[in-house]
């Protein structure tokens, strides 16, 4: 049966993600050597950039699903649920991007937070999607919520390049960005380090896929339950009509 095959695939992805994340930790903490300049700190390189990549991937998927929902011909409740699932998981990964970035910043720059362009833009993105989740919590009909959150996702998406441009100018117009050496562009990556980096990207992406899938499935089943309750309510109302006549 198709659905059992799908469930098996999902379970395989989940297992692969778990193994991958464990491998990332092992490679990052044990196998790879400390770097010349950054010392042991370089080990953060195996978690932070992949978090950021997944965060942007998640919001890309949310935007795409929202657009597909808004377009009348492709409007399906599934797109709305996918957008929501992806955004929720995306918020987790964005939060982790900010936390790991901050942990990287403290020993490198001496501060927990620097108004580095990329970091600032990520923080605003985080706030935008907290707004998305808050909007979804407002009680309203399913379709209205779908349309409104999709519109919001598009508005937020349009905002991202503008935010990027403005914070970039903000931090670079006057002083040269002596601080904005992200963890990625200051280290020469080679050999086993490249392997660890690749493993981390793949396994965190798989983690994301698995989490979105599970979350989507939960939302879908939730919806099915609500529709079942609805069918009961209609039947009851019809019975009362029959009884009244």
């Amino acid at each position, binding site marked *: 049966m198709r659905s059992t095959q799908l469930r098996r695939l999902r379970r395989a992805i989940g297992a692969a993600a778990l193994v991958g994340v464990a491998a990332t930790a092992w490679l990052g903490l044990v196998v790879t050597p400390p770097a010349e300049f950054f010392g042991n700190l370089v080990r953060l390189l195996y978690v932070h950039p992949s978090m950021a990549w997944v965060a942007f991937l998640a919001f890309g998927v949310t935007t795409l699903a929202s657009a597909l929902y808004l377009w009348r011909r492709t409007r399906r409740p599934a797109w709305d649920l996918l957008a929501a699932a992806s955004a929720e998981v995306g918020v987790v990964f964005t939060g982790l991007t900010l936390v790991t970035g901050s942990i990287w910043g403290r020993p490198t720059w001496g501060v927990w937070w620097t108004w580095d362009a990329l970091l600032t833009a990520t923080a605003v993105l985080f706030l*935008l999607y907290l*707004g998305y989740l808050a909007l979804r919590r407002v009680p309203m009909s399913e379709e*209205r919520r779908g*349309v*409104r959150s999709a519109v919001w996702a598009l*508005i937020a998406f349009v905002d991202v390049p*503008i935010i990027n441009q403005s914070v970039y100018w903000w931090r670079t*117009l006057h002083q040269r960005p002596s601080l904005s050496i992200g963890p990625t562009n200051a280290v020469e990556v080679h050999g086993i380090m490249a392997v660890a980096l690749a493993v981390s990207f793949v396994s965190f992406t798989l983690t994301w896929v698995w989490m979105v899938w599970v979350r989507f499935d939960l939302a879908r089943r939730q919806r099915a339950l609500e529709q079942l309750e609805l069918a009961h309510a209609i039947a009851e109302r019809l019975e009362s009509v029959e009884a009244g006549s």
Partner: protein
Amino acid sequence: MLRVAVAVWRKDLSIEWRSRVLLNQVVPVTLVIVVLFGFGLDARTTLLRAALPGLYWVSVFFALTLAVARAAAIEGEANAGELLRLLDITPSGVYLGKVLAVATWGLGIEAVAAASAAILFNAALVDPLLLSGVAVVADVGVSAVGVVLAQLATGERASESLLPLLTLPVVSPVLLAAAKAWQAGLARTPSLAFPWVEILLAFSCIYLVVGMLVYGIVLEG
């Protein structure tokens, strides 16, 4: 579409003229915020003057979200979302009218806030042309976003804190750009303001177009 926009705009202005909610509540709130900044920064005028662009724009942004909420409340009273749908009126015209109305009120708020900040912080507003030009464009940008978001956030049971949560992050580039442009103007280095004015113009144009496209969808949904 323009006819509808002007009708909506005139209607909102005359309602405000009658009720004076903004004049009696929102403008004083703006003044209070400006005064509180003076308290918070220990009335050190050098510090206040240096921080004036930021403080000014933060207080104006709060006041603008209140103005946007008020504009939405007017329509809510008359159940106008439904009304306008029923009358089959161009949503983009209504949208433009609402943006115009909020922007008009916003200009008043900005003028009062600027005057009080200049007096209380003991600052000279040099280069008034640049400053007011920036103020107009930023005002339109915030209104353009705010009107759509107010329509998103005013559900039957949406809380009042949702609108600022949605609006303020979206308009954060406007805050940044307007504050930087003012900083450049006040420092008598207007040429430094140009990239920021560019951002402001781009933001306002983009969101006016986006708003006209999606306002109808939001009304119907």
